[in-house]
């Protein structure tokens, strides 16, 4: 999937992936797509929940073994 930036949160657990995601999104422009890498199982539900709460759009997810990839289009 096309992306403008990547945020790697591998090894971090709740709430750090979400906290770093929120910080990173602030640095991006509206319409840009951020790739978020996470291996915290909680992120599977947390990232979609954060997106729906903040109005950022989750445009795709991929799983590679234990690695989760989220593609978030900035509001």
């Amino acid at each position, binding site marked *: 999937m096309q992306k403008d930036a990547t945020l790697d949160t591998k090894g971090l657990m709740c709430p750090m992936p979400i906290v770093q*995601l929120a910080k990173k999104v602030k640095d991006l422009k509206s319409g840009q797509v951020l790739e978020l890498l996470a291996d915290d199982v909680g992120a599977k539900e*947390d990232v979609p929940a954060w997106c729906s709460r903040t109005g950022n759009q989750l445009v795709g997810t991929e799983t590679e073994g234990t690695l989760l990839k989220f593609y978030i289009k900035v509001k």
Partner: protein
Amino acid sequence: MCMVVSEGTFDKAYMPLIMGQTAAASGTEVHVFYTFFGTKLVTKKANPKLPGMYRLFTGMFRNRMQKVGIAGYQEFLKQCQELGVNFYACSTTMSLMGVKNEDLLPGVKLLGAAAFLKLASESQTTLFIG
């Protein structure tokens, strides 16, 4: 979002910060009200321990949490404040717990029950951490 914290142990100390930090990162206004044993958690010297016998394993817990990116307690408080989390100490129980105004971390406000209830009534979520 409002939270009431009435205990001062490690587990009760971290939970409101994890919830509060996440909520603040999602754009939610967060108010955390510390009362009874909780008031010690917003002091400059706060260094909470696990409850009872588990107290001995606090260091191990802290190391494990640091490995997954969760800061030490004082640093975690600071991170929350930077994200806009509001901390309050209960004015009545402070004297009961021997906590003085000057012991409180900068930015911690003093509040009575009525003022907290007003905040809670205007909030969609209220959690009690006791």
